[in-house]
């Protein structure tokens, strides 16, 4: 990994091509989370806070080991704890590290109207640029994973950066470094995918988890964060991980057909007005009018 990995691939709300796009193919980076070996120690939560210099947040006991109900503008990495009883009566305590999934087709970026507020680097990292953020929160609508969070004081959006500052210097993200069980891995997307598939196969063949599989949802073009799940058919048991996440239809319509319809309507309107002018000339105001 090098600083070259922070070449930009896509820019929010940007007219025209991305400068330097397509000049060089970059490796996609990927975080692999093996939920079957996570012990829910939350070392990754602390590492995230420490590395990103995020402040202490007061929490209250809420009948769970989960630190807070969902991620926050200053809490980007959260283990979701879920007690799950399967149809056959078997019981599991599921722990899933929740953070930005760094989608290949990021809904947040598609929904964002502010030029440059959200960028996707060629290595796959989706990053918010607070300097350009206008605080409209449209990215919230675009995200199928409930990740972008609003700071009402600064009126800016925040989320996990996949530690772009570390990754661009050849280091792994802070959460990966802190994990004591090795359930977190970091590397190229293809390598991580292969490792994940191998682990899922091992679980299917050597444990009772016959439906173990890899979560890398195609609906958002695949993700830069992938999971090994005990049961790939039921990701929702892990604290609302969607079965088939997609960029919402409204965002797709708005940024796709509607945008073009709007453009056509605008251009059409201009052409109509011009034709009207040429055909009928300027509107003459009746000199006797009131």
């Amino acid at each position, binding site marked *: 990994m090098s600083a070259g990995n922070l070449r930009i691939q896509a820019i929010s709300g940007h007219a025209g091509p991305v400068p330097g796009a397509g000049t060089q193919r970059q490796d996609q980076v990927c975080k692999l989370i093996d939920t079957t070996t996570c012990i829910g120690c*939350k*070392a990754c939560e*602390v590492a995230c806070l420490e590395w990103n210099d995020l402040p*202490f947040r*007061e929490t*209250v006991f809420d*009948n769970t080991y989960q630190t807070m109900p969902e991620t926050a503008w200053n809490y980007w990495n959260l283990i979701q704890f879920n007690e799950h009883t399967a149809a056959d009566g078997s*019981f599991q305590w599921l722990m899933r590290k929740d953070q930005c999934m760094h989608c290949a087709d990021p809904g947040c970026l598609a929904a964002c109207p502010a030029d440059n507020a959200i960028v996707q680097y060629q290595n796959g990292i989706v990053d918010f640029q607070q300097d350009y953020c206008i605080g409209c929160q449209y990215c919230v609508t675009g995200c199928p994973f409930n990740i972008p969070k609003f700071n009402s004081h600064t009126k800016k959006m925040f989320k996990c950066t996949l530690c772009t500052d570390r990754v661009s210097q050849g280091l792994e993200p802070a959460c990966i470094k802190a994990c004591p069980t090795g359930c977190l891995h970091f590397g190229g997307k293809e390598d991580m995918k292969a490792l994940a598939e191998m682990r899922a196969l091992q679980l299917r063949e050597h444990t009772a988890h016959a439906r173990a599989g890899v979560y890398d949802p195609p609906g958002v073009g695949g993700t830069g964060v992938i999971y090994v799940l005990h049961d790939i058919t039921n990701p929702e048991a892990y604290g609302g991980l969607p079965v088939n996440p997609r960029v919402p239809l409204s965002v797709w319509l708005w940024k796709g057909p509607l945008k073009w319809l709007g453009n056509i309507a605008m251009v059409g309107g201009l052409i109509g007005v011009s034709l009207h002018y040429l055909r009928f000339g300027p509107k003459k105001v009746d000199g006797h009018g009131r």
Partner: protein
Amino acid sequence: MVCEIYPDETSEFWRSPGVSAGEMKQIRTAVYRLPGAGFAEKDGTFVNSARWLQWKNAALPPPGMARLDQEILARIFLKVRELYQKEGGKFPDAILDATWNYTDPHNPSLAEVAKEINGRALADVTDEKLKQTILRGQQLPGFAWLRDDGSTAAGNWLYCGSWTEAGAMMQRRGTEDPSGQGIYANWGWSWPANRRVLYNRASCDAAGVPWDADRKQVWWSEAQQRWAGVDVPDFKADSPPKDHMGPFIMNGEGVGRLFAPAAAFADGPFPEHYEPTESPLVNPLHPGQSSNPMARRFNSSMDKLGTSAEGYNIVCTTFRLTEHYHYWTKHNPMNVQLAPEPFIEIPAELADDLGLRGGEKIKVTSARGEYIAKAMVTRRIKPMQIDGKKTYQIGIPIHWGYRGIAEDAGRTALKLANILSPAVTDPNAYTPEFKGFLVKVEKV
């Protein structure tokens, strides 16, 4: 006198809940808390249960007036020595003549201390058999060089070889493992003699040939007439298999034991199952002696035992969280936000019986005291069926007391979980029986 980085229950016992201002004045114990340094503020070693000495560097200096442990100890020692020099004493030699040859006598470096513990020659020492001589002042290469005639000095024979003339063995970071067996002989240093697997002679048959040809640890080399291996052989190196020296060299018999010799354990030579001193059932193996008759007990007013007949019929266990470290991290905001307050885990079925929802407060009472905290209602702890009876178990994490972020903010009942547990200990290791005892539970 304590050396701590945070206020703790031991040194602030006089502030425990229920002690009135008048009673505090009656306490005639003076408490001195010395401002020590945290683990990340010190260099030195972490020694793990695989016996590895692993050197670490200080990450940052101690804050404010805090001092490294060795500086605190050195300053006290030098002051005491000064007093002995001035005023004398009954037996001043041990203080006045102690070797204290550190570069900075007021703040000895731990590297110097580690070298001292390894040991060095005080005079030239010769091994006739090896035809080698260690010169006066040199670091000793291993404990076989220690002499009982005053010609060598070492802090601990087990650590002899950890910091030799070749350098700091405990600071090595070699990750090579040529045998592929996870030996990592050049990572740190393992006591004794950098031996990674104890009793590794047992990996060979009587003839000194490894049981598993694919995973050879040590073997008898006929050519060298010595034991060789990918690990340091845990054996008399030149004792041939035909001499039948047993592999378990620390046992008199040289072999593993099926039972312990008489007097080795207070409660007899064979393993035995006993119920805890407080148990919801009578030991079905031998009802006449349900719990361990040799368990150590105390006889104060705090050492009462309860029975199911008295209504103490819920099993309680205490445990620790990954989010906290003993009674220490309750002072650290990062840990406190992960697990902010004390709680008690109770089975969902018991919560239903009590008409209780998660987050509501409950009181747990044993024959010795009470504990109050919010309930964590969970399906992870299932009721047990014991001898046909439904028996509930609850669990209490131990990490709170009466000083800490949550405590100082008034968010706790200022109780200690170990008020509930009995001070009954195993008769050999003296491990306390905090994992199983009897309580009552009620809604507050």
